[in-house]
């Protein structure tokens, strides 16, 4: 019973309508989270004792880095759904998340580099963490290139799913590389098991910003997914009806 319901909601047509209904809620949540996060990041959080005001870059760097990893997992998982269980929405989600993941990775690298210059004196250091983030960017770009090179959408999605699953092996190496190597990069500031090593007033905006980025990702992912579905299913009647409805408005 649950499975048939799930299949219904996972069909592109139903996804289109329920995601549209969610959109205003998601967008509002996004705005609220960003506003409160930025207020916390730029005003409420005190400057760091050692790093001064440049510490505030953490509030755009760390969420971007977390998203870059999170999105890759989403991409791999939804690709797997499409590959193994033939859930079309999985294919759509995987293809739609890739560019977002690449942008977040790019942001993480650039903001990390801008944070590094005042802190360590150089824009770039080949330590394990930064290098792994760079590798992650290459993984995203390879995935996007592969999907673009194959014309049949269905085959492209399944090929990409294999590549994403293979790339997932790289993720644990990224996560644990900080422990494996002596590097310039700080120890992880927040982990599930340890007590965070930064003060609460600094931690809360970080968590809010991370939530904001996640909410943003979901909102935009759904928009991109709807675009993919429109392109994919442009010849179906429900799409045509929707388009005519929208035009009438």
């Amino acid at each position: 019973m649950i499975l048939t319901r799930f299949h219904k909601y996972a069909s592109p047509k139903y996804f289109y309508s329920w995601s549209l209904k969610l959109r205003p809620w998601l967008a509002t949540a996004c705005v609220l989270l960003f506003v409160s996060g930025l207020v916390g990041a730029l005003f409420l959080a005190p400057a760091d004792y050692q790093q001064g005001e440049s510490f505030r870059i953490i509030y755009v760097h760390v969420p971007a880095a977390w998203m870059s990893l999170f999105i890759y997992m989403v991409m791999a998982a939804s690709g797997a759904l499409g590959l193994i269980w033939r859930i079309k929405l999985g294919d759509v989600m995987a293809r739609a998340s890739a560019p977002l993941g690449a942008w977040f990775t790019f942001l993480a690298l650039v903001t990390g580099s801008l944070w590094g210059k005042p802190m360590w004196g150089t824009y770039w250091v080949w330590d394990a963490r930064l290098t792994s983030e760079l590798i992650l960017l290459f993984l995203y770009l390879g995935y996007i290139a592969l999907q673009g090179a194959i014309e049949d959408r269905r085959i492209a999605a399944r090929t990409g799913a294999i590549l994403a699953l293979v790339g997932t092996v790289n993720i644990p190496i990224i996560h644990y590389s900080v422990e494996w190597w002596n590097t310039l990069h700080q120890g992880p500031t927040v982990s599930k098991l340890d007590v965070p090593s930064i003060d609460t007033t600094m931690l809360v905006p970080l968590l809010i910003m991370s939530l904001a980025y996640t909410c943003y990702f979901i909102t935009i992912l759904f928009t991109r997914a709807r675009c993919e579905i429109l392109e994919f299913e442009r010849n179906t009647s429900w799409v045509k009806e929707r388009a005519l409805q929208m035009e009438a408005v």
Partner: protein
Amino acid sequence: MINEQFFAMGGYAFYVWLSYGLSTVILLLNAVLPARKERKLLLAIAERSREKATIK
């Protein structure tokens, strides 16, 4: 609280504001462009199916 000091960011203005600025620009672009694409797609599909209807 938005004063001279706020913009100076303790001397790190370039790094902090470039980080925040770049993040804002990229996030805005990634929000606006797909939304516009969705509208354009819907309009194009509506256009095409009206044309097909008139041909019939």
